[in-house]
């Protein structure tokens, strides 16, 4: 049987499919269940310093080939998340703490707490497209990104992953700024909007949201491709993965592990065990023994 486990920044994942940040990962019991049901690891909802209620619904617009969302980074604040981390870690699999902040000092405080909670790594949300002062507003400023990543690397022992936004002119420039991170996570959602023509109003209460799901896969593939060409660093591919072909496409573009978000809604929580089985049979059929053998194949 081919080996579908992967090792990124010295963290071993039984399979390469992690739960992406912001999807069913605010409640510790849900994370624990998704890990027990077959995810290789989980990234938590992005957590900030203070409690935030997020936006008033509508926070999602289901589309034919994807999903538009603006949930507004609801989170209990880092202190309120301690117990959820504890419950999540009971599954005995890697849990990555996603955090958002507007400056380096705040990021350090959050990441220290995640480290104390037992997170196996932290993921910096430098890319949420719909909250003022955070996410992509921070992540599109190369100087700020550099300061954040560099100071974290000297303060934090656990690996630091940088999640970048596709909503920038030059993703390579931002990746360069985040160059000291232990892995890149590509991509967050693509900024978008929907209007209900009968109501003559934007549907999302925040008006602007982020597009995810199958529709954004080509955007993700291209980001992974470009970053793989320019950096020798592990990449988590995320954006529109819902079947084994999508997964292999990301791996051949250069991803060493993957994250799944929207497909958990379109295909149910069972997607993790299903896609893992499918990946193993695909590799067996094609004669691959490990994910590393497939990684970046399309570049050769």
């Amino acid at each position, binding site marked *: 049987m081919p080996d579908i486990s992967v090792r990124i920044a010295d963290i071993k994942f039984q399979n390469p499919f992690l739960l992406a940040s912001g*999807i*069913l*990962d*605010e*409640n510790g*019991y*849900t994370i*624990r*269940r*998704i890990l027990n049901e077959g995810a290789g690891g989980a990234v938590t*909802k992005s957590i900030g310093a203070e*409690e*935030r*209620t*997020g936006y*008033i*619904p*509508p*926070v*999602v*617009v*289901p589309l034919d080939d994807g*999903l538009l*969302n603006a*949930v507004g980074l*609801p*989170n*209990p*604040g880092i202190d*309120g*998340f301690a*117990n*959820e981390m504890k419950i999540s870690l009971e599954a005995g699999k890697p849990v990555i703490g996603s955090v958002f902040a507007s400056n380096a000092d705040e990021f350090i405080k959050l990441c220290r707490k995640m480290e104390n909670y037992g997170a196996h790594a932290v993921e910096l949300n430098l890319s949420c497209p719909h909250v003022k002062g955070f996410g992509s507003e921070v992540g599109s400023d190369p100087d700020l990104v550099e300061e954040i990543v560099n100071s974290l690397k000297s303060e934090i022992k656990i690996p630091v992953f940088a999640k970048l936004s596709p909503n920038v002119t030059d993703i390579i420039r931002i990746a360069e700024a985040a160059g000291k991170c232990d892995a890149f996570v590509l991509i967050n959602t693509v900024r978008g909007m929907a209007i*209900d023509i*009968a*109501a003559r*109003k934007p*549907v999302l*209460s925040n008006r602007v949201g982020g597009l995810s799901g199958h529709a954004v896969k080509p955007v993700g593939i291209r980001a992974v491709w470009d970053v793989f060409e320019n950096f020798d660093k592990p990449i988590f591919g995320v954006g529109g993965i819902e079947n084994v072909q999508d997964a292999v496409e990301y791996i051949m573009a250069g991803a060493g592990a993957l994250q799944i*978000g*929207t497909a*958990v*809604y379109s295909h*149910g929580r069972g997607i993790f065990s299903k896609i893992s089985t499918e990946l193993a049979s695909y590799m067996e059929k094609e004669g691959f023994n490990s994910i590393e053998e497939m990684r970046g194949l399309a570049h050769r």
Partner: protein
Amino acid sequence: MKHSEVAEVVQASRSAVTIFFIDDTEILPGQFLMVWAPGVGEIPISLSHLGKMKGITVKPYGKTSSSLCGLEEGDLLYYRGPYGRPFTLDSGRRLIIGGGTGLASLYSVINGESTVISSARSSDELLFRGKFKCRNNIEVTDDGSAGIRGFPVDALKTIDPDLYSVAYVCGPEMMMYSVYNYLRNFNLNLQFSMERMMKCGIGICDSCSMGGYQLCRDGPTFFKDEIPELVEFGKSRTTESGRRYSMK
């Protein structure tokens, strides 16, 4: 987002109204819609009336529900769905236990041989009074202004639950928790429609989860043997931000 014209608005209690609209998609008992008041908000509401003429029953509570209660004949009702796992309709006698507007999601399950235990704070808040398909209705009010003073469990003590094959239950969580703890010792089947905040309705935001199950998708209806797995039921819940608090 779908929309339908409001055909009629009927008072269901002193403050709750049933909004009727025509939609011939198949919707099953226990399922819900995410109903949108443009520019105000979106909330989950289960269907009280099924068939070609559908109905939702709403009580003004927050901004969105208050705005929906102001809809009039000819206005447009915006919604998406239906979502959620429907009730399984057991044959045999049905015991229907509804607290407050929770009774709305059970209304379409009531048949001629059912017994309805309806509860509310006071008599004028009792939903669908005198409009049940069955003759047996035990009313329960907190203040004793109608029927038994107390809670649905007090009504249950006046009957033999094992004369029924199944109980369908919906209402405030602590009421359901006490009903569950009472009824689980009997032989009848149980189907509970659970209630938690729902922001997305489609199993992506985690706001409605209990014990790792999404009420909007795995539920909202759950069977007797599934309820113990909902480890947060009656114990703790999370706020809009995801902050956990104890319900005790």
